[in-house]
């Protein structure tokens, strides 16, 4: 019996995909927001997820993170079936998430935001009652310098501009070092100069730290430039998958964006 349970909890395909969804479906009343979607993200990849408004991109993300429960299908993280896990447990298993509207802890200092993101030690009582050690503090300063916000460690995070907050949120993910980072429209609402910066940071994290990233994006130039592979959703269904070049020349994708059936 327990053996059968074990088997069910691991990815039947047994591959080393960081993330794999198998026929994920989510309905809201009569609307099927996500319809039988398979995606797969391999270690070290940057994968894009695009589609017109209402295509189900954020809903798919929510099913992966456990914010929503998929009605059908399975979600595998590092080969483990996490479909029915609570959201915090999935996050702890190595899934990071940056929200569409930047979300950091506004009444805490920038430093505390970053310290909080550090995952080492887990939820043991000893770890919870310890003060942050020097190496962690040093890492915080290092990351703040890296995203050009050195000297702001003691500032209340809510005082920072939107773009700065986005960088802090990204630095928090660098601190957490998740196995997979989901980014919901990282380029949304930031100025072109900062976007260039962000692209650089994401590239560096991907190349140097082997960060694996799955991102939703509306900014086509940005996603075509940064992604290794792209999935396209329309009306909840996966209509295309391929390299940026393939996607740009895909007739179904063009139709979906131009509203043709």
């Amino acid at each position: 019996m327990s053996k059968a349970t074990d088997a069910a909890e691991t990815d039947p395909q047994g591959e080393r995909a960081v993330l794999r969804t198998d026929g994920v479906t989510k309905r809201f009343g009569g609307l099927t927001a996500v319809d039988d979607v398979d995606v797969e993200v391999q270690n070290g990849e940057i994968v894009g997820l695009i589609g017109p408004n209402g295509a189900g991109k954020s809903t798919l993300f929510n099913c992966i993170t456990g914010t929503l429960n998929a009605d059908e299908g399975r979600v595998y993280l590092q080969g483990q079936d996490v479909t029915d896990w609570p959201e915090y447990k999935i996050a702890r298993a190595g899934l990071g998430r940056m929200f569409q509207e930047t979300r950091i802890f506004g009444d805490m200092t920038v430093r505390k935001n970053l310290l909080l993101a550090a995952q080492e030690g887990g939820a043991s009582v000893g770890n919870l009652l310890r003060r942050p050690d020097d190496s962690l503090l040093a890492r915080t300063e290092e990351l703040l310098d890296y995203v050009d916000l050195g000297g702001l460690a003691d500032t209340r995070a809510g005082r920072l501009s939107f773009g700065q907050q986005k960088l802090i949120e990204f630095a928090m993910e660098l601190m957490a070092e998740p196995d997979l980072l989901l980014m919901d429209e990282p380029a949304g609402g930031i100025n072109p100069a900062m976007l260039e910066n962000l692209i650089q940071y994401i590239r560096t994290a991907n190349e140097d730290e082997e960060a694996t990233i799955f991102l939703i994006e509306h900014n086509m130039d940005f996603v075509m430039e940064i992604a290794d592979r792209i999935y396209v959703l329309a009306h909840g269904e996966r209509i295309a998958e391929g390299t940026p070049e393939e996607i740009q020349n895909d007739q179904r994708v063009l139709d979906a964006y131009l509203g043709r059936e």
Partner: protein
Amino acid sequence: MSAESESNSGLLRSLVPPDQVDRLFGVCGAHGWKLLAASAVVGALPPLLGLQQGYYMTVISEMFLFAILALSWDIVGGQTGYPSFGNMAFFGIGAYTTAILIKDFAISFPVAMVVAGLVAVAFAAVIGAVVLRLRGHYFAIATLGVLLAAQQISRNLDITGGASGKILLEVPSGTVFYYLFLGVLVVEMGVVYYLSNTRFGFILNAIRDDEEKATAMGFNTTYYKTAAWMLASLFTGVAGGAYSLFNTFIDPQTAYNGAWNVELIAMALLGGSGTVAGPVIGAFGLHTVIEVVETAFVGWQLVLLGIVVIVTVIGFPEGAVGTLREYASEMEYYKRGGMAATDSGEEVSADE
């Protein structure tokens, strides 16, 4: 907070330079334990220097008591962002526990007080499992419901003495309570101060600022909220346990006092919720003012309380400590962050 400081910022800045305030915060932060120890010593002095049992000793003891209660409220209300209108339920349960144990079971006072704290914690664990699922207004109303229900139950039980309550005649002297409340307060300040610099404290603040984000970062928020709630109930329960003897009398109205619950919140907000010193300063300040007004114009202290709450919420939502900290960090931001913000765009083009 900012409208006030901006309108007369020129005068204010020259009188109290933000960087001086910032330095003061730095000193306080660096020497927190020494400050706490010094405060404990200062607090312990008056009876040694001749303060006799009587009106003033009672008033100061009450100040300590309210500081304990306000700081406990703030662990959940200010640090974790769950404003409770039911903290006095823990207080009442603690008060009745000692009253019953001492009167009906002849248990000694210190033991009864410890048990009072533990009973309050057990109660908090059970109630917390239900009410901590709610947020914002719903949480506030549910906790108020818990307080009223607890009051009603004690009014209808025999063991609690029903509506007439319990009278305790053999009680320790006022000096004992003075040091008892002071001791509990100092311990609690130490605990909260220590926790506010640990990962546990950060997580509580994160839940306050954005609980969904905290969950998305891998924190089981229910677990941490319940822990904070139980910690708050421990100190509140112990304080209640001591209060029934301090007051020599306990009935449903005094034990589960909804007006006190509002006072606690006002104290925490006035002093600065989410800080260690804030609720304590707020409790000392507000209790003194209330005591003075009550002596001079009986009944008007409640009007004053209402006015203080309104002015605080509108004018200084961060409270005294929070407003000062904001004022100090403002300069910090303009000096470093403001420039970093304008610079970053140029630095990018320079990199290209």
